[in-house]
């Protein structure tokens, strides 16, 4: 490591102001700080600092997504061979899944990081770690058969319009990964909705409907006919976006996030409660078969669990106050189920619910903070009298 450090120190001046590669300063800095935690010491204020930094925080989120990713890779293969009626070994499914999923991940990271590095250089900033998470989130919320150029376009849209125009990580209003997905959803609906896209290279004869689509079909029908049991939906052996099918794998991620303190348990719990509340309410007031679907199904269908754990908890776009987080989370749960059940044109209510609440989060915070201000003013009155 000393040799590497020496080499870095040797070439470093060329990347600093006045050096040959001055224009690549941010890039150099990103790689240097990736390899070595900087030797920078505290100068003002607290002389000691917590060991946590943004790299650690963001990499923990990526680690928390790994169970969902691994399951997703297997499931892409599993669903593919299932649709063709073939029985293959575990590793064949994984290999097939890797062949499908890895390119999407690579395209997402390469596109996003290239833009991030460029913006950091233009702004003379250090490269932000935020995209480490977004770059993994995007592949997990798209269908396995999505054309790679679409992934690239959607990622570029999300990073530039969703994030950089606002000033970069920490300044954005909408969750970048969801922005990418919403972009795909509205720009290329054929490739990201319907029955055909959720299984990679599906056999035509096989119904590839997701539980959400099956439930939506229940609006005009007597009953909802689920192909899969509740348990299958929970485990995740169902068609769907790459990383969102397994509630179990997602919950493992939730435990990692909540335990390390990186993700807000407060938000996750309130989203779940909001979903249960709205699902239960619809059960009580049911007038069609979809409304009859037991409320707990909503937690395991579609992107509810994934959105709850990895999207709603994004600290930048969520409410920032503790009270606000409870309201924000609860309303996401409510809106997600409401949109799903009452508006079949948008089967994936979770995405829209989170984006909607992203927009409302500052307003929620405003009222929470306003209450604090009122408390403070109230305290003053008796003194004046």
């Amino acid at each position, binding site marked *: 490591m000393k040799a590497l450090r020496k080499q870095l120190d040797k070439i470093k001046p060329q990347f600093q102001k006045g050096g040959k590669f001055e224009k690549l300063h941010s890039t150099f800095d990103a790689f240097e700080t990736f390899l*070595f935690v900087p030797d920078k010491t*505290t100068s003002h*204020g607290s002389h*000691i*600092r917590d060991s946590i930094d*943004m790299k650690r925080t963001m990499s*923990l989120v990526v680690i928390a997504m790994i169970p969902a990713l691994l399951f997703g890779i297997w499931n892409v293969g599993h669903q593919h061979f299932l649709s063709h009626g073939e029985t293959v070994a575990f590793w064949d499914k994984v290999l097939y899944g890797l062949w499908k999923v890895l390119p999407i991940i690579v395209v997402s990271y390469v596109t996003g990081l290239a833009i991030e590095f460029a913006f950091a250089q233009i702004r003379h900033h250090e490269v932000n770690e935020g995209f480490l998470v977004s770059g993994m989130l995007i592949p997990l919320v798209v269908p396995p058969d999505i054309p790679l150029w679409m992934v690239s376009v959607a990622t570029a849209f999300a990073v530039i319009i969703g994030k950089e125009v606002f000033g970069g990580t*920490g300044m954005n209003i909408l969750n970048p990964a969801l922005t990418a997905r919403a972009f795909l959803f509205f720009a290329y609906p054929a490739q990201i909705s319907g029955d055909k896209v959720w299984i990679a290279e599906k056999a035509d004869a096989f119904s590839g409907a997701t539980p959400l689509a099956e439930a939506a079909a229940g609006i005009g029908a007597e009953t909802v006919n689920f192909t899969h049991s509740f348990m299958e939906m929970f485990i995740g052996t169902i068609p769907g976006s790459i990383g969102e099918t397994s509630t179990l794998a997602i919950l493992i991620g939730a435990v990692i996030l909540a335990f390390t303190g*990186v993700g807000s348990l407060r938000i996750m719990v309130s989203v779940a409660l909001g979903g249960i509340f709205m699902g239960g309410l619809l059960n009580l007031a049911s007038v069609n078969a979809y409304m009859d679907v037991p409320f707990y199904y909503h937690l395991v269908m579609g992107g509810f669990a994934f959105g709850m754990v990895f999207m709603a908890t994004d600290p930048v776009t969520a409410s920032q106050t503790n009270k606000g987080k409870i309201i924000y989370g609860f309303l996401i749960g409510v809106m997600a189920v409401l949109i799903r059940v009452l508006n079949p044109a948008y089967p994936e209510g979770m995405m829209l619910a989170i984006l909607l609440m992203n927009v409302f989060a500052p307003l929620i915070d405003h009222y929470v903070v306003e209450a604090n201000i009122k408390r403070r003013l109230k305290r003053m009155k008796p003194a004046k009298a």
Partner: protein
Amino acid sequence: MRQSEISNIMPKTIKLTKGLNIRLKGSAEKKISGLSSQQFAIKPTDFTGVFPRLQVKEGDGVKAGSPLFIDKYRENIIFTSPVSGTITEIKRGDKRLLLEVRIESDGKYEAIDFGKADPASMTRQEIAEKLLQSGVWTVIRQRPYAVIANPEQTPKAVHISAFDTAPLAPDYDFIVSGQGTYFQTGLDVLSRLSDGKVHLNVSKQTAAKEFLGARNVTINTFSGPHPAGNVGVQIHHIDPINKGDVVWFAGVQDVITIGRLFMEGIYDSSVTAALAGSEVTRPQYYKTRRGASISTMVKGNVNDENVRYISGNVLTGKQIRPDNFLGFYDSMVTVIPEGNYHEFLGWALPGFGKFSTSRAFFSWINPSKEYRLDTNLHGGERAYVMTGQFEKVLPMDIYPLQLIKAILTEDIDLMENLGIYEVEPEDFALCEFMDTSKTEIQTIIRKGLEIMRKEMS
């Protein structure tokens, strides 16, 4: 004795749950040694908001209590010499900023006689006059802004925190022992200065009779982790500062200094200071004086070369050189290792030995470990991303991130509404410690307070 009985009848404990105790190696052993420093200095930079106007020049002889400089804008605030001797150097920095007035002690501690006095038989005016003249007034500070109190104002209350919860902080039970009469006289003086109450805020664990038996004060008991010992946190829970309020505060040793002035008639600058930190060979307490050189204290008592000397604690203290001087308000010197090293893939390692308030490192496995923390920043500065962190270590009804952002945008109304008057940088030290984005929060808070002070004056 009636007063003390009353205060003992209602020992309501205020329990604070938010906060953090950072367990560091090298706490001071309860042993006091004398220290004979020759070099002293009063540093105008210790006094926020003071514009010094010198009253001495190099080569002048001074006694303990002789004026060194005054505040240009409040000329009755006088800063006096802690010892008798000669002015050896007037040290200036950039733009001729006055950094230090150095005094070489003659070892005699001759002091100007300001006359013994009984506060009970004096008017408020006479008491203030005596404090101002001797320079002892400067130990009394006010909130908002955490600056030296304005003698023209009458505070709504006076607060004394009788314990310090900061990492490795000195034990005031130990420091006050044997100083009970001075301490009580100091309290008597303060009670004459305020129309309101004098609050003595003690730790639930305290057993010191000097505190528990104190008269003319209201005793409030606190329990909980750091920053429960911060006077700002205590004020917030006892009688919060509203717009227009002025509250005064002083430390335990400040009260003792006031007491000595009235009982002995002199400015006696003696304080007890703890020398602590992982790099100290024999951490212990020393009998020293305000502004004394720390060189005799640390010489031969520090393990390593690459260390940082801090006057004060690791969260709020000031970095000084090993031949520099104890800060005016400080009761401790901390020595910790410098962190100027590169760590290969440090952010990715499991981190069994890395202290963190998050459980992002495996050090959560061993919660009672004492740490040898260094000054490494452990990362680079970023925009604010994480939320809900600061709230865990700020036991006040204040929205920390929102207040910080209000300061950054210099929104005066919002700062006021969000409670800027109630805070001081030290209250946000833990927020700064645990900030994932590595911003300088104490500097931001100070900036906010200065904006408000200019706005209101």
